């Protein structure tokens, strides 16, 4: 059976979590359930940095190159001079490139998030037990 601690207050919960980690319990065995994201938990449990940021970087860079290539290619494919500007007029294309960098970065981050957390899988959505507005620490027992 797993050991459970239930708290109503955030600071009591954080204090207990610190004590547990200091007491020598491996952070890998601790599960926490909180009603909203508590960033201090990540610092206490030393959660490794997620590889999600590489998805974001990849998406942003692909958006940057796609935006720069697409605007230049479309203008060169049907060259029309507008307002006396050069065909590939970089200052105007910077905005499209910038927006596509953000769009691709955002969308690919989202896809990366789905892949990394193995979603959408119905089993992984939600916890089996509902804890409501309580802060819960669960320690996995040795057997498991």
């Amino acid at each position, binding site marked *: 059976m797993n050991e459970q601690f239930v708290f109503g207050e955030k600071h009591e919960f954080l204090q207990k979590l610190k004590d547990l980690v200091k007491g020598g319990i491996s952070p890998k065995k601790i599960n926490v359930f909180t009603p909203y994201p508590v960033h201090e938990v990540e610092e206490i449990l030393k959660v490794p940095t997620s590889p999600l940021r590489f998805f974001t970087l990849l998406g942003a860079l692909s958006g940057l190159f796609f935006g720069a290539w697409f605007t230049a290619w479309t203008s060169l494919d049907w060259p029309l001079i507008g*307002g006396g500007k050069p065909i590939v007029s970089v200052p*105007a294309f910077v905005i499209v490139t910038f927006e596509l960098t953000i769009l691709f970065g955002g969308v690919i981050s989202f896809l990366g998030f789905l892949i990394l957390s193995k979603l959408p899988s119905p089993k992984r959505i939600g916890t089996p037990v509902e804890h409501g507005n309580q802060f819960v620490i669960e320690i996995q027992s040795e057997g498991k």
Partner: protein
Amino acid sequence: MSKLQLNTFTLGIVAVIILGIIIGLEYIFPHGSGGTLLLTLTFWIALVQGTVAVAAAGDATNSKWIGPLKKELLAFHPLILFMAFLFLFLGLKMDVFPWFENQNRWLNTPFFLTRNFVLLVISYFLARFYAKATLRNSPNKGNLAVLYLFFFVFSESLVAFDWVMSLEYPWVSTLFGGIFFMESFYAGLAIAALIAAYYVKNGIEDQTVMTKVLRDTATFTFGFSLAWAGLFYSQFLVIWYGNLPEETSYLVRRMHYSPYDILFYLSIFLLFIAPFVGLISKRAKVIPNWVRMIALVVLAGVFIERILFILPDASMNVFSAILETVLMGFLLLLFFVNRERVMGYAGTERSDR
């Protein structure tokens, strides 16, 4: 630094003496004195109004990170009054403005001096009331913060339109005021980051709290580098796209003619590229030496951009510019060291720590 501790009266005397020296410098170095005075005025008014604006914006939005830095940021508020009196002296140097010979209903010397002086004095008094209210934690501090911010934006926009843009008369750009008060806020944040870095490095105050504050101010500086680039680019793109002779002259003179082109690219590098690249990583935001360097780079960027705005239209004197900058920097340092005295709340507990 404890040697610089002065009482309020001496501090006032020192401020008056520095005001006198700056005015004297304008007569010792008469060549290009109007441009130098404008540079000193526009740069330091941005700093002193910006720091108070950062504190006010923090209060208006109920943000916690401003708490440990509030007294430090508000310590500069009496300098708004100092700048107001220094501005009055510009009345003797009105010949730097091209409209001086041919005055009209908006741009004439008496109205120009009155409206700017009155706005600066109003913003000083609002800053004073707001500083008192927020250090006593009185319930109407939010209202005063918003009121101060309103007058900050108003007076800083008028600084842009009147003091700087009218040098290029009849060239107009409606975004000029926005760029100025945004830059002023940016400079205020850079000062906040400097102070936080100083506290973390010297182990003053609670370190865990101060490290968080350092990270927050560094994040804000990083964010405002993007905001600056956005505003700059939206001004640049419209002028470039419209390609109207009466609008492009301003940019062409600064982009394609030496030595202004160096200043132009340098200001883009110092205000956008350096803080953006330098503060993008999570770890860099909590290294006090690094954040201090980036904050100084931002302040240098604002200074160089002021030179870029003014120099093509009004010549400057290198010696008096350097001396005035050093004097004003010393005055700011003096007010920072004497912050407890300036605020007149020495010994009282800060409530929102």
